[in-house]
């Protein structure tokens, strides 16, 4: 036996809190095995990265394959805790992983014999393959359809796009499945060879199986089939059964499983398109093992043969379904260890060949930093007033792709400022668009279900936006600036699609129009409340536009496009302004309105204010297939127009029965949560869309949906149940039914 090459002068890393010497070139697993210990918590070791039995915590990162990790001074390794999941909170320093992007004609994964032959063949054909092999520090962790590969290296992730991918990943070995197969001391033939090559004493070693991969190893080969492995803390003996059914028990320290090959096909199982070619042993079929009868089949998920029996008895009869129901194959090795045994189980039970299940990226454990490298969250836009809101102490939140003030600390005070005094709100996020051109009127007549031609210059109109199915997907205003020039507004969330929608239809209809999106080019401030006009007059706007009128004006010396409308139910003017003038205008309004009781308001107050008026928010109150009829907005539809988008669908469905109706509800405070079920006669009939406890009315107001379980041919029920309390079906608006406050 070779002398232990590790001595006092050898480099060290820390394992389980104590120094661990190693030989340069050792993997962490080999160094640990040389000390007589195990890198993981048992199970057959392959030392080729196929199984998950050497996983440990390395430098704070869990689920690291120690057999694929080079030992180095300063490294800190620990086994996973037994019986509980290791902490997933790795070191913060690995969050920012750089990504290199490459494009290649052809990529070869795996540089074994088959990969090298393929390389030579491609080079001879005049091609330049990109070569990837884990032993070279480039570990392919994922392959996707359309020729996309993700590679992990020590210091970066590499994202590769290729016209062709050749997988030459070779073969793994079958793992034993029987009672005791998770005891430390079980090795594949390849692992045993690596240990011997590293000078590690296997002790009394026996070989089970006759595949030939263990030939030449100094171990006793046992005939017969493996029945079980015995031992308390590690392998102490194996029991094999001969052809006559006789069992023999043999004492040993190491069991070498020489059970035959299994394709190393995890990457191949991730894709199913023509961009990937599998060659060499990875493409060759391998015989399945005998059907397992006891023990752990999937070491990653701890799935036992008994678990598979239970799943089978519940009617899951295909490999893919067995995987999902038993979790076998869903762990870190994606079936590298268990798939042959699962297939053998299903084949034996069904009498039919069982095909492999698919694999999911990644084939190796990745940190979240590695998985997310090069991927960003959606970027949330900031308005020109963002810093001003934060200076005022606003609680900011994300809505419709923007950071917006939710409140400034007291949404009820903000509410009262709107109802009783004056308030300003940032509505810069609204979609804004200019449309001109000789065909602009005809174009908008086709786009919108309301009349457009009769909107006078200087006036505006509320509009719905319908798709071809007559379903509501946005709303806004048409503001007429000239005979052929219009400003359109959209919801904040709908603005993103508006330009595309308009341009597509202009092209489709061949109409001569010009379309310019101005959403991010202008800021906008809504000045609202019974004293809003007084405030604007103070700042030099002597005659604020009347209801649904608009004008280019100057407020506090700042040029604005002032549009009078109302979402809050009070007199309101939207001031559209250059973004770089928005803060100055905001501050001028706040300063001039101080003695009027001005406060800024956030979305929390705004949502309640508009709900008291019964104004629908598209996307919050509505659903993907909401029609004007379902929300009682037929008044916004002019069916006698020659054409508009969605008209045909609305005409076709007008006479059909429809149980889906938006209803207005009131009930005692507190308001139920949005989404609360609505009940009628102990039947679930719908849900609350939005709700608000009205400070002014002293009770809850809601918009909700009746969807099923009520007789739509009769009247709408007068009372329903929400949260176990009676709610009265009401009419909107809940507040200022005549609408005088918005118009005065």
């Amino acid at each position: 036996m070779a002398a232990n090459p590790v001595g006092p002068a050898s480099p060290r890393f820390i394992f389980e809190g104590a120094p661990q010497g190693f030989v340069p070139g050792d993997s962490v697993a080999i160094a640990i095995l040389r000390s007589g210990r195990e890198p993981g918590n048992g199970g057959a070791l392959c030392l080729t990265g196929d199984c998950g039995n050497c996983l440990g915590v390395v430098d704070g990162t869990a689920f690291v394959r120690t057999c694929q990790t080079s030992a180095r001074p300063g490294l800190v390794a620990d086994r996973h805790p037994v019986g509980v999941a290791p902490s997933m909170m790795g070191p913060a320093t690995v969050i920012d992983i750089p990504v290199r992007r490459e494009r290649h004609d052809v990529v070869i994964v795996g540089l074994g014999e088959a990969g090298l032959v393929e390389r030579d063949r491609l080079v001879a054909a005049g091609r330049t393959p990109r070569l990837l092999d884990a032993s070279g520090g480039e570990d392919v962790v994922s392959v996707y359809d359309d020729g996309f590969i993700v590679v992990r290296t020590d210091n970066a992730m590499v994202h590769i796009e290729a016209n062709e991918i050749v997988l030459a990943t070779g073969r793994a070995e079958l793992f034993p499945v029987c009672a005791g197969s998770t005891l430390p001391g079980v090795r594949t033939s390849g692992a045993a060879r690596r240990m011997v090559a590293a000078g590690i004493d296997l002790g009394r070693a026996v070989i089970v199986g006759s595949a030939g991969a263990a030939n030449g190893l100094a171990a006793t080969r046992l005939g017969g089939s493996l029945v079980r492995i015995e031992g308390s803390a590690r392998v102490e003996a194996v029991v094999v059964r001969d052809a006559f059914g006789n069992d023999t028990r043999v004492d040993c320290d190491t069991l070498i499983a020489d059970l035959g090959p299994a394709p190393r096909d995890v990457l191949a199982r991730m894709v199913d398109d023509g961009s990937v070619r599998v060659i060499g042993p990875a493409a060759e079929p391998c015989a399945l093992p005998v059907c397992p009868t006891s023990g752990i089949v999937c070491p990653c998920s701890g799935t036992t043969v008994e678990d598979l029996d239970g799943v089978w008895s519940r009617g899951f009869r295909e490999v893919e379904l067995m995987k999902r129901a038993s979790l076998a194959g869903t762990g870190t090795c994606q079936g590298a260890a268990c798939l042959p045994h699962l297939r053998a189980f299903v084949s034996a039970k069904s009498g039919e060949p069982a095909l492999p299940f698919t694999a999911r990226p990644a084939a190796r454990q990745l940190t979240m930093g590695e998985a997310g490298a090069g991927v960003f969250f959606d970027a949330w836009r900031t308005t020109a007033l963002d810093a001003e809101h934060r200076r005022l102490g606003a609680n900011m939140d994300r809505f419709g792709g923007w950071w917006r003030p939710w409140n400034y600390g007291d949404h009820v005070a903000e509410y009262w400022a709107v109802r009783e005094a004056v308030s300003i709100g940032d509505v810069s996020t609204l979609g804004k668009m200019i449309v001109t051109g000789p065909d602009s009127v005809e174009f908008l007549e086709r786009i919108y279900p309301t009349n457009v031609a009769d909107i006078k210059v200087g006036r505006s109109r509320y509009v719905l936006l319908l798709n071809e199915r007559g379903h509501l997907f946005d709303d806004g205003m048409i503001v007429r600036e000239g005979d052929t020039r219009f400003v359109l507004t959209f919801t904040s969330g709908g603005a993103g699609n508006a330009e595309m929608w308009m341009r597509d239809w202009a092209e489709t209809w061949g109409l001569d129009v010009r379309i310019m999106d101005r959403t991010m080019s202008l800021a906008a401030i809504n000045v609202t409340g019974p004293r809003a006009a007084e405030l604007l007059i103070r700042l030099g706007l002597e005659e604020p536009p009347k209801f649904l009128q608009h004008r280019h004006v100057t407020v506090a010396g700042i040029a604005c496009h002032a549009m009078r409308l109302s979402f809050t139910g009070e007199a309101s003017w939207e001031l559209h302004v250059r973004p770089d003038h928005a803060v100055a205008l905001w501050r001028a309004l706040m300063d001039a309105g101080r003695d009027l009781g001005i406060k800024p308001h956030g979305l929390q107050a705004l949502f309640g204010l508009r709900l008291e008026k019964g104004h629908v928010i598209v996307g919050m109150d509505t659903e993907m297939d909401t029609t004007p009829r379902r929300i009682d907005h037929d008044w916004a539809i002019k069916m006698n127009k020659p054409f508009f988008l969605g008209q045909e669908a609305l005409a076709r469905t007008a006479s059909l029965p429809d149980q889906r109706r938006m209803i207005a509800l009131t009930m005692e405070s507190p308001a139920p949560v949005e989404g609360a079920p609505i009940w009628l006669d102990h039947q679930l009939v719908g849900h609350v869309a939005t709700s608000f406890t009205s400070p002014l009315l002293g009770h809850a107001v809601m918009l909700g949906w009746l969807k099923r379980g009520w007789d739509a041919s009769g009247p709408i029920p007068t009372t329903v149940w929400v949260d176990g309390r009676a709610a009265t079906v009401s009419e909107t608006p809940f507040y200022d039914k005549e609408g005088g406050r918005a118009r005065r």
Partner: protein
Amino acid sequence: MLAASTVPAVRVVAHPDALDSFISSMKAWPITKTALRLAPDEALVLHVDTTDVSIPDDPHAIVEPEHGCSLIALSWPEFERHVRPLVEWAIPPDRPVLAQGMVAFIPAKLWMTTGGVRIVVATPFADTLLERMLAR
């Protein structure tokens, strides 16, 4: 230090032929006044105001001052370090050239000349884009 600054600009939407004529006329302008052709019918003209821009061939052209754009100027080494790793698409080889696409998942326009790159981005995205670039 990289920074985003607002840039005076004019946005034009006009009939493509009329826009062609206008951009041809710009060839006599100072080189700092650059027209970025965003689409056949749309251009963003940098460092001008609306008095500089007239589209006589299209009475329906929309000519609007653009105050919602920010500009980030980079040398090529800065581009290679801070931007290229965030671009998933092929950078066109021609110079000068306008390329439009996502940079770090944010829509941006890249005006690339032999002297460097100017990134034009909607101001509401500018801070986030810069933050993502400087993380490199």
